């Protein structure tokens, strides 16, 4: 990926529900940006220039360059029975790519998310499949099997759990966890707390 390609990619810069008309100062790939919203149409300005924006998954997305394709879609996000959960922002002192790597790595579950996503008695990671799908320009890890003490509440359906990463600089990022779940029993606050619990367990590891 070239430097231009980095600038042409879409990045999350805020929760749509958390924006305000007065604007919020932030950064993207080291450049100053201001993010506006609230009762006005969402807008991102950098150096006096309006950047392209997309509203999707409850977040505002922008790009410093000229994206040659639409932001990816998550079909599950449009399913009427799924609860969409905005978890809020957490700042992490690490390379934005390291935050992605942490999300894909299952080997840390028993030690960082003990008795939730893994157990110290079951640390083995069986072989799984990683591929780069050229048609969509995405990395996919599939056939991942791992011992997890707490199972999802939606048998037969996959939970969709995302980390939207805003690269502020090379070694600092804002992370917006987000979920689309089949779960009408658990309160929204409990769902938010669960995802915050997991992510705040990860945070010291990412920054370590």
């Amino acid at each position: 990926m070239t430097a231009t390609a980095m600038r042409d990619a879409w990045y999350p810069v805020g929760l749509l529900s958390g924006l305000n008309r007065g604007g919020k100062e932030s950064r993207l790939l080291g450049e100053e940006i201001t993010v506006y919203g609230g009762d006005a149409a969402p807008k991102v300005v950098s150096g006096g220039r309006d950047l392209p924006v997309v509203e999707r998954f409850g977040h505002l997305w922008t790009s410093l360059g000229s994206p040659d394709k639409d932001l990816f879609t998550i079909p599950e996000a449009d399913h009427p029975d799924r609860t969409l959960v905005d978890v809020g922002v957490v700042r992490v002192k690490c390379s934005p790519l390291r935050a992605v790597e942490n999300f894909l790595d299952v080997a840390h579950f028993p030690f960082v998310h003990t008795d939730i996503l893994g157990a110290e008695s079951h640390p083995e990671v069986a072989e799984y499949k990683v591929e780069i799908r050229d048609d969509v320009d995405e990395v996919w890890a599939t056939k991942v099997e791992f011992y997890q003490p707490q199972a999802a509440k939606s048998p037969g359906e996959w939970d969709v759990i995302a980390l939207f990463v805003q690269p502020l600089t090379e070694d600092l990022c804002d992370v917006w966890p987000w979920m689309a779940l089949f779960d009408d029993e658990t309160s929204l606050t409990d769902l938010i707390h669960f995802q915050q619990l997991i992510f705040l367990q990860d945070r010291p590891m990412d920054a370590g």
Partner: protein
Amino acid sequence: MASLLGIKLELRPVDFHPGREHKGEELLALNPAGSIPILVDGDVVLTESAAILAYLAAQHGPDWLAADPLAIGQQQQWLSFAHRLTSALGGARLVEMLHFPGDLDALQANGVAALRELEAALVARRLAGSTFLVGGTPTIADIACFPYVALAPDGSVALDPYPSIRIWMRAIRALPGFIEMPGIHRLHELAPDPFAEAPA
């Protein structure tokens, strides 16, 4: 504290971030200061951590409360000291992690000053033969000071320079009934205890 005392609390989750539920009408009615935690026990409502600790310990674990005048004074001293930890290290954590407004440099500097005081006190306690802040066993003073010390790294304040604090934190994490939270992990089952007797 309740878990360390072996009593069951009904926990009511609050959407502190991003919902700011603690500033909502329902919780402001319970606690006009708009802070958490809040303990409700029948008609009793307590909104200060130190008060909650003292109330629970007095009912269920008097061993966790200082008894003689000197120890009571020291315990009270540390309960007040915990407010400094909360405002400095807790404040740095909110700014650094959750985008709260605040002067990060000043909060971190105040936090480091408090940690140095705590380290010096714990060195003196170790020389006197105890790991804990007041007397030979843990008290509510230790529990009040523990969380924001242990969470200091969340606000980018390192704990590496303070060996006595680290020994004290390990002793608290090893207490029966200790509950972890994100940023404060339980002791690993597989990790060796550095204070265990070496095998013969």
